[in-house]
């Protein structure tokens, strides 16, 4: 069965080629941008790499990566069936806001409180993305357009919810939703004095990644979802109801998106305020693209992006602009799209040629190379002639 091994290593190579090429190109282009603006094109990178060696920065990177990762899972569920949920931003912010309100007004024991909070986040996210899903299924509205608009509407809804007439509590100039009950604080992993605490929700994120993989690759539902993404017409002919699938995928994507704000909310802020981290939903799209929707790939990508943001801050102190990280993120997105598509085209063509070559060499399954039994071999000889 040595053929299979060869195919496998080939596939690993192909899978790795895309992101590696994209990152190299993005780094190179960033250096060019730096050089063009008269800066040292390499020093900022060495500063940023150095940051990654400090354990307190490492904790920050891991903590921020958790939310990015969960957001990326939400985006990836959509991507796997050709739905572009740009609304993760609105979904996770609204969900975080609602969850903070629930957490501030209800006090169960922790073993009930935390599941309740997770549930309210997921349901809020799902409702918000579900609106886009229903619009698409019943009216054919593109989910790209509706989710973008729902982002704005979510911002307005949040503004309303944080009014003092509604659920808001003013803390200084900051409008918050009030501090959540302690039962809803997710226990973290203390890494020691001066280093910080890793959010306990990181583990939930990892678990979500595993569930995501299991669901996609080991369940009937996941197969239908992937089939819909790979070929809508073939999926329909195979018996997948397109509308049901769109709605389910949107709900699922929104539910996961709703959880993206929880690492921060339950791990550190314990309240939703104007200063709650924003634009995670958009960065999650970068992560999903770079990680090719694969759970492991997205984990690496979320760590990378998180490093980019956390390590860029000290650049300001050294006379560089920390916006380098933003430039780099943009370049990564472009490079990723270009390099993945070219690697895919190249890989398909290469495989076609290899299959042709294998067949010409007589390596047909069931004849020469595989370890099948002899009776089949002879039969094949007759059939293949």
């Amino acid at each position, binding site marked *: 069965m040595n*053929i*299979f091994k060869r*195919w*496998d290593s080939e596939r690993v190579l192909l899978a790795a080629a895309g992101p590696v090429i994209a990152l190299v190109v993005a780094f190179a282009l960033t250096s060019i941008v730096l050089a063009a603006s008269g800066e040292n094109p390499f020093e900022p990178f060495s500063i940023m790499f150095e940051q990654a060696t400090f354990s307190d920065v490492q904790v920050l990177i891991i903590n921020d990566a958790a939310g990015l990762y969960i957001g990326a899972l939400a985006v990836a569920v959509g991507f796997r069936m050709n739905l572009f949920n740009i609304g993760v931003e609105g979904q996770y912010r609204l969900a975080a806001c609602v969850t903070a309100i629930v957490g501030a007004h209800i006090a169960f024991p922790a073993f009930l409180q935390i599941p309740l909070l997770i549930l309210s986040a997921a349901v809020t996210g799902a409702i918000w993305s579900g609106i886009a899903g229903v619009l698409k299924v019943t009216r054919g509205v593109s989910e790209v357009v509706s989710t973008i608009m729902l982002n704005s509407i979510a911002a307005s809804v949040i503004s309303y919810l944080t009014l003092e007439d509604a659920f808001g509590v003013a803390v200084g100039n900051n409008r918050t939703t009030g501090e959540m009950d302690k039962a809803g604080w997710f226990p973290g992993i203390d890494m020691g004095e001066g280093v910080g605490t890793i959010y306990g929700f990181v583990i939930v994120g990892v678990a979500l990644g595993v569930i995501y993989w299991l669901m996609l*690759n*080991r*369940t*009937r*539902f*996941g*197969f*239908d979802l*992937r*089939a819909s993404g*790979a*070929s809508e*017409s*073939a999926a*329909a*002919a*195979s*018996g*997948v*109801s397109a509308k049901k699938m769109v709605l389910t995928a949107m709900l699922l994507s929104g539910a996961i998106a709703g959880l993206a704000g929880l690492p921060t909310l339950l791990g550190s802020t314990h309240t939703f305020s104007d200063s709650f981290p924003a634009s995670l939903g958009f960065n999650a799209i970068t992560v999903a693209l770079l990680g090719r929707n694969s759970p492991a790939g997205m984990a690496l990508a979320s760590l990378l992006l998180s490093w980019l943001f956390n390590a860029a801050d000290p650049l300001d102190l050294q006379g560089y602009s920390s916006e380098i990280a933003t430039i780099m993120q943009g370049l990564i997105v472009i490079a990723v799209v270009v390099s993945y598509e070219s690697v895919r085209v190249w890989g*398909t063509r290469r*495989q*076609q040629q*290899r*299959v*042709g070559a*294998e*067949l*010409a060499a007589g*390596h*047909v*399954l*069931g004849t020469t*190379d*595989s370890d*099948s039994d002899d009776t*089949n071999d002879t039969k*094949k000889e007759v*059939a*293949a*002639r």
Partner: protein
Amino acid sequence: MHALVGENGAGKSTLMKILYGMQKPDEGTIAIHGEQVSYSSPADAIARGIGMVHQHFMLADNLTVLENVVLGSEKLYGIGGKARRKILEISERYGLGVRPDVLVEDLGVADRQRVEILKVLYRGATTLILDEPTAVLVPQEVDALFDNLRELKSEGLAVIFISHKLGEVLSVADEITVIRRGTTVGTAVPAETTSKQLAELMVGSELPTPETADSTVTDRPVLQVEELRLAAPGGGKPLLDGISFTIHAGEVLGLAGVEGNGQTELIETLIGLEQADSGTVRLLGDDVTGWPTRRRRESGVGYIPEDRHRHGLLLDAPLWENRILGHVTEAPNSKGMWLDPKAAQADTERIVKEYDVRTPGIDVTAASLSGGNQQKLIVGREMSHSPKFLIAAHPTRGVDVGAQAQIWDQIREARREGLAVLLISADLDELIGLSDTLRVIYDGRLVADADPASITPEELGSAMTGAASGHLEHTEDGA
């Protein structure tokens, strides 16, 4: 006029791609008019006077013929009167009969093909490549096409003609090249060759015939369709109207018709992709009219789609995932809500062996197999779930002679075991040879029925154009 014949995956398409500049040769030379050339893109090939008429037409439906022809070569004669005059001139010179101001969507298949040929001539082609030009035509249209091609030839153009249909090749070509596994295995002059000899050259085996042995038709109805009607989306004439037929266990019902006369819609209504506006579909006595596709498939409807890339395969997925497609809820693919990849993989290996799918392994993507092998995989998959009713749309289209015989055998085998088959095919020999009953569909209606034992392809062909419709049996024994 030079014909190129060969099995599927023999390298015909690759050769054509090289000639048309879509792919680069590793070695060897191409000479045009005695001059060695090398080019890197179709644009170079066009500049050298090579034109390609693809098997799948590349026309924009909502543009007129004139607009389609000038599209992309506006520089040649502009887009106005000069272009129109040029089109009419070419059309007249070669007897193509093209009307420049008609919308392409209003044209039939044969007319579209003529537009494609004109498009190529308009760009100044002196060498025409036609990829399986007769696959979509009825016999009368094929004759007309050949007349056009002879006209082109007499005007001094060279025509390269790719085909599976040996009879046609023999009747129209001046010289024939047979290729197998990427090399030329022989050349022949039609006057000195029979189609049998050609076929032997192609596959090294005898030419198979699609004839069924004795009738296996029972009186147990499997599929009963009554007064099926499907309205057109924007109003207007219904796509299907008053369709009624019954297929019994062990019966193959052949549906003849020029493409675009409602076959696709009928298939989609039977499989559940379209909901009929009125009428009923019964499967083994159950009214399945309102059932979703999955439930129909689970209850024993097999489906060999007419467009395997669009409806039958996930091209970028490995073979074993393609084996699951369409049967994800059935054993051995899943247990409860969980997939069973191991069992599915093992079963894929079985299909690959039993149905002679030529592949180095089951982890390669479906896209990397040749069309014939993709089709064998689909047939194997559908047959593996012992269907009660099989929709076989062009089951051997684009499949080489060897695989064709195999697929016919499998359909016959299953029929003997009580399978009911709806066979739709543009290959009239296949249709007549395999079917127990024949129906003709024209304009969304079943207009004629015929006895496959006595009807000739020509008679069937004329019924397909709507010319010789009639509800009586066409048994003109004199023919």
